C-alpha cells in the first residue's frame, strides 16, 4: 500500500534523490517518499561515467565536490552498507593540448589549492609515469589530483536508499509522478500513476526530466537535457590508475576496479532533448580517439554501449534552491554531467534547506534567481 500523505515527496530515485531522502531522515524528518518511475539509478546515475573529481573551475563545484569526496571516503561506514561502494582514488589526469588549456588549468589549480584540493600541473613525462600507456604526442601538460577517482554509482545509490529505508523513508519504484496539485501558490499533492500523495513539499530531483517536473508547477526552468554516449570494454587486469579526461578531445576514459574500461565523449553537435538512443558512429569516433591516445587499448573488445542525459544549466553549475514563485517546491537539478560526484554534499544541503536549518555550506549562489540577475559564474571544465 502506498502512503497517501508525506511531509516531503522527492521525485527521482537517482543518487541525488536517495541522498536527500537519507539526509532528511537523519535530520529527523522521516515522513518522506521517493518516487521513481523506473528502478533506482535508471536515469543519469546508472548511466554515468562514474568518475569523482574535485578538479573544478568554479568555487561552488570545488567546494561541493571536495566535501562529497570527504564523504565518499567514509560512506560504507556512515551508511552501514554491508557491501562496498568500490571507491578507487588513483586520481584524475586532465590532459592539455593547447596553451590556453594550460592557462585555464593554472587558474583552476590556484582556485582548487586555495580550497584545500591538492591538484597540480605536471609535464608530459610525469603524466606518462602515472599512465604508462599514454601517448604523449602533442601533449603540453596535464592537471593531476591523486585523491580524485571512482565510485560505483549503483552501490552508492543503494547504500543511501537502504539507510534511508531503515529510518522509515518509503521508496516507490515504477511509480511515475504525473502531476503536482496546488491551491493558490501552495503545493497540496503529488499525483502518481498509483494514486495521490498529499504533501506541501516536493523535491525535483528528476535529472534529465527535471524540466518536465518543473512544468507541472508552471515553471519554465533554465535547464535542458543532452544525450551523452558511453561504452564499456571487457575487463582486464589493472592497467590504468587514474581517470584520464580531455576537454580538447571531449573524452574521458577510466578503468574501474572490476577491470573494465568505461569511456565516453561529449558531442558538440548533439541536439537538445530526451533522446537516449545510441549510434555506431559514436563507437567508431570514440574508439579512434581513445586508441590514438592509448594505443595499448586497441586490444580491448567493446562489450556494451548506452547513453544518458546531462541536465545542463547555462553556467554548468547545479540549481539547488526553493522556487521563489512556488513555495515548497525544491530543486536539485541541472548538474550538467557531474551530479554523481557531488551527490553526498547535495543531499546534506538540500535536506537542511528543506527543513529550514542553517546550511553547513552556503549554496545561495546556486539559486534559480542567478540567471535573471545575470550573476553567472561559468564552469569551464565539463566534458
Amino acid at each position, binding site marked *: 500500500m502506498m502512503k497517501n500523505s508525506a511531509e516531503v515527496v522527492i521525485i527521482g530515485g537517482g543518487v541525488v534523490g536517495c541522498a536527500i531522502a537519507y539526509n532528511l531522515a537523519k535530520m529527523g524528518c522521516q515522513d518522506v517518499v521517493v518516487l521513481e518511475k523506473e528502478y533506482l539509478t535508471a536515469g543519469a546515475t546508472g548511466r554515468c561515467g562514474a568518475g569523482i573529481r574535485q578538479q573544478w573551475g568554479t568555487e561552488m563545484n570545488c567546494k561541493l565536490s571536495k566535501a562529497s569526496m570527504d564523504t565518499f571516503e567514509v560512506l560504507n561506514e556512515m551508511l552501514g552498507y554491508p557491501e562496498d561502494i568500490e571507491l578507487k582514488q588513483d586520481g584524475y589526469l586532465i590532459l592539455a593540448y593547447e596553451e590556453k588549456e594550460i592557462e585555464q588549468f593554472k587558474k583552476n589549480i590556484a582556485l582548487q589549492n586555495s580550497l584545500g584540493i591538492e591538484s597540480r600541473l605536471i609535464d608530459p613525462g610525469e603524466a606518462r609515469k602515472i599512465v*604508462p*600507456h599514454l601517448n604523449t604526442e602533442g601533449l603540453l601538460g596535464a592537471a593531476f589530483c591523486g585523491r580524485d577517482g571512482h565510485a560505483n554509482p549503483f552501490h552508492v545509490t543503494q547504500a543511501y536508499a537502504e539507510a534511508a529505508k531503515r529510518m522509515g523513508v518509503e521508496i516507490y519504484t515504477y511509480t511515475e509522478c504525473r502531476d503536482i496539485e496546488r491551491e493558490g501558490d501552495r503545493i497540496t499533492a503529488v499525483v502518481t500513476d498509483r494514486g495521490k500523495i498529499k504533501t506541501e513539499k516536493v523535491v525535483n530531483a528528476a535529472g534529465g526530466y527535471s524540466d518536465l517536473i518543473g512544468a507541472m508547477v508552471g515553471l519554465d526552468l533554465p535547464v535542458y537535457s543532452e544525450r551523452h554516449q558511453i561504452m564499456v570494454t*571487457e*575487463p*582486464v*587486469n589493472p*592497467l590504468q590508475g587514474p581517470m584520464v579526461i580531455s576537454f580538447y578531445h571531449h573524452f574521458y576514459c577510466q578503468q574501474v576496479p572490476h*577491470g573494465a574500461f568505461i569511456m565516453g565523449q561529449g558531442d558538440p553537435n548533439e541536439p537538445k532533448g530526451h533522446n537516449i538512443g545510441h549510434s555506431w558512429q559514436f563507437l567508431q569516433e570514440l574508439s579512434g580517439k581513445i586508441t590514438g591516445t592509448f*594505443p*595499448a*587499448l*586497441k*586490444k*580491448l*573488445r567493446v562489450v556494451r554501449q548506452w547513453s544518458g542525459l546531462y541536465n545542463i544549466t547555462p553556467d554548468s553549475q547545479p540549481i539547488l534552491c526553493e522556487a521563489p514563485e512556488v513555495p515548497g517546491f525544491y530543486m536539485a537539478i541541472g548538474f550538467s554531467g557531474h551530479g554523481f560526484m557531488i551527490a553526498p554534499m547535495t543531499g546534506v544541503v538540500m535536506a537542511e534547506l528543506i527543513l529550514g536549518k542553517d546550511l553547513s555550506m552556503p549554496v545561495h549562489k546556486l539559486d534559480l534567481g542567478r540567471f535573471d540577475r545575470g550573476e553567472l559564474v561559468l564552469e569551464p571544465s565539463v566534458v
Partner: protein
Amino acid sequence: MRIKDHPILSFPEGKTVEFSFEGKTFIGKEGEPIAAALHDAGIRVLRHSPRHNRPRGFFCAIGNCSSCLMVVNGEPNVKVCVTPLRQGMKVEYQKGKGDINAAD
C-alpha cells in the same frame, strides 16, 4: 579426441599445422577452432575463473560464455572456441582477467 564422422556435420580436412600451448608444441588442423585442437590434444582446462581460480573447460562453444578466454599471440581474452587455428600460434593460459601490455 577428434570426431571424423558425424550424421549431420561434415568436417573438411584442413592441412596440419603446428602451434604451441604453454610452451609445448602440438599439431592441429588449420582453420579449426583453437579449442578443437586443444581438445584433440587432451587439454581439458582452458581457463581459471578470475575470482575463485576454479578450472573452466569447453562449455558454450559459440563465443558467449567466457569459459575459454586464453592468451593467443600475446592478446588476452581470446575466445578460443570461435578463433580459427593458424600455423605457429602461441596459446597460453590467462592469468586473472588478462594483461594488456602498456608498451604495445
